[in-house]
């Protein structure tokens, strides 16, 4: 419905716009060159005061017809200074554009406004999305990988609709939610919405990293802020239509290699000290028993090469009174795992009208409609099944039926819970649909010279529907007996409606006093109201697998629902002062009140102060011509975090602890979450020192920032002793965490004759340390949070190789009585002769020491090439589980390295322990399972060719570019069988793999 509506209004716009353009007479022409005499291609030429314009062709030539009373032409080109030339009686214009030698005159989007880059005092990174818009990716966030210093993005999976990455800005600032705030055109949004924007509708992305830049967002800014500015039409812009398409093929970057069936039998027999029947291995290897002794490679069966395609059309244009930008995008993606797919439609319409000389107003509408499908069995479980299935069962029996059962071939190998992974990808569905619609109205009024009032209202709604269905089925084993059976069809339908309304009103005042004193002031108010309502219905037993409507369910219909609300009210202000563009000063203040806190302590102040010194503007540097810019910045400020759940301050009782007395069901009360009425805000204090440098007329720029980020009063549910029962611990302001680090960006741009070359690189490095945790430790599985170490460090025994002789085994400290020669040996830290809980120590952590990205772009005549690398150094992953266990789980398959690498009496120097079913030492958290996961990855490359305009012009095409692009094409890493890029808390080796994508695309501009 909404999609249709959108299409209609879209078409309407296409029709209306041409009427805004009007025709007149007088032909002008000429060429545009740079100061080395090289023709400039694509320089935009507009007639001042009109919407009329053109661009130069491949030879730098242009032609334009102007009205009789046209006064002057404006020449503009990225990286060059604009030039305005009066027309007079001249008909031929030979223009030389000068390179813009102060790239810092660039304007940067900041909170509630823009600032000249030269006057910035905070730590800010920016990205123009045109550099990344052709990457064959479905998720905008993943395209940002390695593009900005201080921003660490880890993509765990290539599953359609479920490829949301882990996003960190400058380390891990808190124990709970570390997601940065996302602001889309002033609207406080979230990472999900950002990931569903297309790069075609985004103009730029700004990352606010320090307190000076982020404090204006107060209580939601402690994890950093990502500002997204979408494309808008521009005054006097001629109509531009872009039509972009690509088609790609995806393949898993890495699939683990497992042992073959015969090897599996040997390993399994080893693990249980069993003996295989004579001749069994020969029978397996003979391949003559495809039904009972097969040799299936499950990963190859379940994964495939899958297509992804993307289409995007956008129209931009405008007159002096009305400008607009409209776009419509569609992407369809099959998953590399069979049975998974998704698609997404994006739409946007940005309009702005100049209502009067002093008033402009507009309406922005955008959103997406996305769908994803996976089988009833979730993809991680299917990954588990692949890792837990030996190849002995065939995909299908020779009679055509699915292979469903492992035939018992020797005594102890009774293995009933085999599930055919490929079969699982075909059963049932878990479909998710999500429709997001945002409507934003705004008005900007110039109340007096330099004084502007802005008012923005945004309403956002997301409607997410889930449809989970498990059909009835019956699959028989080789003997024809029903073995894998479901007699009860099950349907779950769920719906979540999320509404967010945001009102913003603010005043901006800019004035220069006495020539030298530049002052900008900002003051405003903001209100956000959030509500989400969840509802689901479950039902069982349906007339057939095709008639699946909830009202047809025959039994066990049940429902569940909940509502969540929060509200935030804020007052904010900012003052900027610059003296002679040399000495810069900025102060921010935000006062936030949140419904999440008790009314006694609802409001909090978040101030920040920063100073800057443009040293190059001092007289003593005027003569140093190689130094274009040298600016020193320093900032201090406090930020907040209110990501603590909605109702943590008031003790509540969950009445769902129902119980029958007789035949009457009664409500029963229980505490699910302990409350803490003394809860306070979490505050982050960031100190930042930065240096901006530019050399050789801005050919080389470099920014370096050093920061110290201390988060205090971190809200955390400190684990309770189980003697407090099964309740969630209260949220307390208990911890403090410090991140210290460095962000470095360098950029180099040059032009050698017709070759344009840019190189950009960035490095982020930080150390993370828990400074305070009430003197306690929070141990959870293999992770610990403890003072003096990074958040979520690995915790367990230090491995000391294997027990290699009876002698070593006899004398060594053991966990109990189960160890044998070949078992893992641990360091007895307290020297008490026993390996127990007291021997656990911190074993490192998953945070990388460095993460970096670098990219280079080349342009030569019509050709262009982009290479974009990302990498991390000093990253460790916990690599136990699926495929990588020493035999301590019956149905587990083994990575192929276990066959040669395990300890046996014949292989006494083996790197891997002996296989063994029982014994706690196998599963104990230990350093043995921690592997280095450093990697360097060619994340994206692109090779394009723009067909000369004189050819395309004949088809009325302004620009036609074809390209091939690739993603994850090369990876250098030491870790095997798993992708080195994975979530920091992932310890189970079962995530949906990443994809390597090769794509072909066409960009067309009319």
């Amino acid at each position, binding site marked *: 419905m909404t999609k249709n509506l959108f299409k209609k209004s879209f078409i309407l716009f296409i029709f209306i716009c041409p009427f805004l353009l009007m025709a007149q007479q007088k032909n002008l022409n000429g060429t545009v060159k740079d100061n080395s005499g090289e023709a400039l291609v694509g320089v935009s030429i507009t007639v001042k005061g009109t919407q009329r314009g053109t661009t130069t062709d491949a030879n730098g030539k242009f032609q334009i017809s102007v009205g009789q009373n046209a006064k002057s032409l404006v020449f503009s080109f990225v990286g060059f200074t604009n030039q305005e030339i009066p027309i007079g009686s001249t008909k031929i214009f030979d223009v030389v554009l000068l390179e813009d030698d102060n790239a810092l005159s660039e304007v940067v989007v900041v909170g509630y406004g823009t600032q000249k880059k030269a006057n910035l005092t905070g730590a800010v990174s920016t990205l123009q999305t045109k550099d990344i818009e052709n990457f064959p990716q479905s998720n905008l966030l993943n395209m940002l990988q390695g593009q900005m210093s201080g921003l660490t993005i880890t993509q765990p999976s290539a599953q359609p609709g479920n490829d949301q990455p882990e996003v960190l800005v400058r380390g891990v600032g808190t124990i709970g939610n570390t997601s940065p705030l996302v602001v889309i055109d002033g609207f406080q949004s979230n990472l999900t919405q950002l990931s569903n924007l297309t790069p075609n509708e985004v103009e730029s992305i700004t990352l606010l990293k320090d307190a000076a830049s982020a404090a204006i967002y107060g209580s939601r800014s402690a994890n950093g802020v990502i500002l997204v500015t979408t494309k808008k039409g521009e005054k006097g812009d001629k109509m531009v239509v872009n039509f972009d398409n690509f088609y790609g093929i995806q393949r898993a970057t890495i699939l683990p290699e497992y042992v073959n069936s015969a090897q599996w039998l040997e390993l399994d027999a080893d693990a249980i000290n069993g003996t295989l029947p004579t001749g069994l291995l020969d029978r397996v290897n003979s391949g003559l028993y495809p039904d009972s002794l097969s040799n299936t490679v499950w990963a190859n069966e379940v994964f495939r090469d899958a297509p992804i395609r993307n289409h995007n059309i956008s129209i931009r244009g405008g007159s002096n009174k009305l400008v607009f930008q409209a776009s419509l995008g569609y992407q369809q993606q099959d998953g590399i795992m069979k049975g998974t797919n998704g698609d997404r439609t994006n739409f946007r319409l940005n309009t702005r009208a100049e*209502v*009067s000389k002093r*008033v402009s107003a507009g309406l922005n509408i955008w959103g997406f409609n996305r769908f994803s499908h996976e089988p009833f069995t979730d993809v991680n479980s299917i990954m588990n099944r692949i890792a837990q299935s030996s190849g002995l069962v065939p995909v299908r029996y020779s009679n055509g039926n699915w292979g469903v059962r492992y035939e018992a071939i020797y005594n102890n190998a*009774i293995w009933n819970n085999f599930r055919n992974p490929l079969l699982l990808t075909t059963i049932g569905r878990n479909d998710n649909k999500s429709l997001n619609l945002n409507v934003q109205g705004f*008005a900007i009024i110039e109340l007096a010279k330099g004084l502007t009032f802005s*008012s923005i209202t945004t309403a956002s709604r997301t409607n997410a529907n889930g449809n989970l269905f498990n059909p009835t089925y019956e699959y028989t084993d080789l003997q024809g007996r*029903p073995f894998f059976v479901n*007699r009860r069809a099950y349907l779950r339908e769920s719906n979540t409606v999320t509404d967010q309304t945001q*009102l913003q*009103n603010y005043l901006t005042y800019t004035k220069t006093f006495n020539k030298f004193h530049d002052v900008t002031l900002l003051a405003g*108010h903001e*209100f956000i109201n959030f509500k989400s309502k969840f509802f689901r219905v479950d039902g069982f037993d349906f007339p057939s697998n095709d008639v699946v409507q909830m009202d047809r369910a025959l039994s*066990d*219909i049940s429902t569940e629902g909940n509502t969540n609300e*929060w*509200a935030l*009210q804020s007052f904010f202000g900012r003052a900027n002062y610059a003296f002679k563009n040399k000495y810069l000063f900025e102060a921010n203040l935000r006062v936030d009140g949140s*419904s999440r806190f008790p*009314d006694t302590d*609802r409001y909090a102040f978040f101030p920040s102060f920063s100073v800057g010194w443009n040293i190059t503007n001092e007289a003593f540097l005027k003569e140093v011509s190689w130094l274009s810019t040298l600016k020193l910045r320093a900032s201090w400020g406090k930020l907040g975090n209110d990501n603590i759940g*909605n*109702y943590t301050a*008031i*003790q*509540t*009782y*969950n*009445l769902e*602890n129902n*119980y*029958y*007395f*007789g035949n*009457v*069901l*009664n*409500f*029963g*009360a229980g*505490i*699910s979450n*302990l*409350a803490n009425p003394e809860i306070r805000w979490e505050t982050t204090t960031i100190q930042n020192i930065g240096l901006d440098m530019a050399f050789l007329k801005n050919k080389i720029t470099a920014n370096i920032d050093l920061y110290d980020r201390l988060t205090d009063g971190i809200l955390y549910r400190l*684990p*309770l*002793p189980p*003697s*407090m*029962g*099964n*309740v969630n611990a209260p949220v307390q302001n208990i911890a403090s965490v410090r991140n210290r680090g460095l962000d470095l960006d360098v950029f180099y741009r040059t032009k050698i004759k017709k070759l344009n070359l840019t190189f950009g690189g960035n490095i982020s490095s930080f150390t993370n340390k828990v400074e305070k945790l009430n003197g*306690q430790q929070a141990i959870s599985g293999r992770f610990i949070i403890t003072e003096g170490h990074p958040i979520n460090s690995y915790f367990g025994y230090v491995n000391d190789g294997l027990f290699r002789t009876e002698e070593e085994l006899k004398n060594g400290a053991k*966990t109990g*009585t*189960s160890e044998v020669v070949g078992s893992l040996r641990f360091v007895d830290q307290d020297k008490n002769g026993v390996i*127990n*809980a*007291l021997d656990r120590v911190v074993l490192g952590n998953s945070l990388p020491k460095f993460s970096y990205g670098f990219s280079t772009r080349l342009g030569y005549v019509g050709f262009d090439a982009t290479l974009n690398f990302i990498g991390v150094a000093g990253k460790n992953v916990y690599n136990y589980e699926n495929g990588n266990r020493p035999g301590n789980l019956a149905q587990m398959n083994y990575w192929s390295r276990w066959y040669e690498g395990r300890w046996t009496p014949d292989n006494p120097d083996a790197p891997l322990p002996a296989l063994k079913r*029982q014994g*706690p030492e196998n599963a104990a958290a230990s350093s043995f399972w921690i592997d280095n996961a450093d990697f360097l990855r060619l994340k994206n490359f692109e090779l394009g060719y723009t067909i000369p305009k004189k050819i395309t012009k004949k088809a009325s095409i302004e620009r036609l570019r074809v390209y091939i692009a690739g993603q994850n094409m090369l990876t250098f890493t030491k870790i095997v069988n798993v992708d080195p890029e994975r979530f920091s808390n992932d310890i189970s080796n079962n995530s949906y793999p990443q994809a390597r994508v090769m794509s072909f695309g066409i960009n067309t501009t009319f």
Partner: protein
Amino acid sequence: MNKIIKYIFLTFLTIGFLSCNDSYFEKVDPNNVAEENFWKTEKDAVIGITGVYSSLQNGTLYGNLYREFDALSEIASMNNNASGVRAFETGEALSNSPLAENVWTAWYTTINRANLVADKVSKMTNISEPVRKRIIAECSFFRGLSYLHLTSLYGAVPLLKDAPTSQNKGAVRTSVADIYAFIISDLNANIPNLPLTVPAAENGRLTQMAAQTLLGKFYLYQKNWQAAAGAFKKVIDSKLYSLYPDYTTYFTPVGEFSKENLFEVVFQDGPFGEGESFSFNLDSTLALITPLGGHVGITDYANSFLATDGETTAKSKVWKSATPHQNRDPRYRATLLTNDPADLKIWRRVAANPFACRKYGRVTSQVFLGGPQNFYVFRYADVLLMYAEAVNEATGPNTEVYNSLKVVRDRVKMPNLVAGLSQTAMRDAIRTERLWELGFEGIRYYDLRRWGLLETIFTKGAPGFAKVTQRKFTPNRDEFWPIPQREIDNNPQLKPTDQNQGY
């Protein structure tokens, strides 16, 4: 146009200033009830105590796992460690054993809820005195029941008496003797406040005699035989209870709320999540299952059931090896599934698992979201046997002892015990009777612990029983379960040295 903009502008401003109103921030949790609105009426008090009952439905307790502990006795053995029980059989359980932590957490959940309700209800004003006293008495029962299990498994444990707060103050371990003393006096003070019987609409709620039974169990565990006998005698003399006539069907929904039941945890199938997981359906129309798959019924246990003439199969005149399942104590077939052709039609028998549990099983093709079966925590047959045991220990095998046993054996038409048994012989007879009567009810493991027989059973096997190969018992360690590592890590009052010996 200008006018329109002015109006829009004004609207924005107005909305902006309206929003400054503080009431916009009053976001009360719409999913749960806030403390300040609760504990106001008698109904709230009942909702509170209902939450305590509901805590016993936990899958670690009576909802599923409770009776599986019989796999740590002569009744069964585990062939996998999915539930964590086998680690306690093979002597491999460590302080991070999930089972040790889950059982601990589940009982402490009950304790904390009971403490909370007792505290809140004692402070309520708008409540009648009998209702207040009854609910507080129920709380003291649940707290007692929890500590009976905790002390048996872990020895000294933190004794919590007060309502939980959000502060983690921690608590030291209190000796078993002190915990017993506290619970016994608490129960004695509260038992009179409970009703003798409840109306049908309150079936499942606690009665006086249920609490009396718990009191008796404490005395029994304390080896205070005289007091135990006295406590159980009160139950018997109340004449409110009798045995359900048919032992076999008793363990299906028809036996629920019968006169044999002193206290049962109520479960219902249906959409409200009130079902259990310990019972099972035997459905011959489907691929056959092995009930309690991980459990292997011990063959010596199956063979120990007497023939109908009261003799062992070896000595019996009525038992024939050709028809080994006939002419046996009816509790044999009611407790176990065998290789009898009738049984083989309804269960999947494998060589490694020759006898499976039948108790609490139903032969039905109806599918349940959760099982409908109540779990019988205290039943009259158990009371009779505990009474017999207490009297035998206190004064020897007198007629009271014989009579109690007779009631139990009469129901299954087994002959009386021969007269003139010595106290020791009677002790053995009672212990064996409990083995037959209470199999797969989760009682045996606790019996073995209180009799101090666990080590013998693990290392040698019961008299006439083979030792189970995989069983291991490390003295000075396996007498008690480990205090959960997370308790030691996170309880500010406990130090690593507070761990039980050997872990």
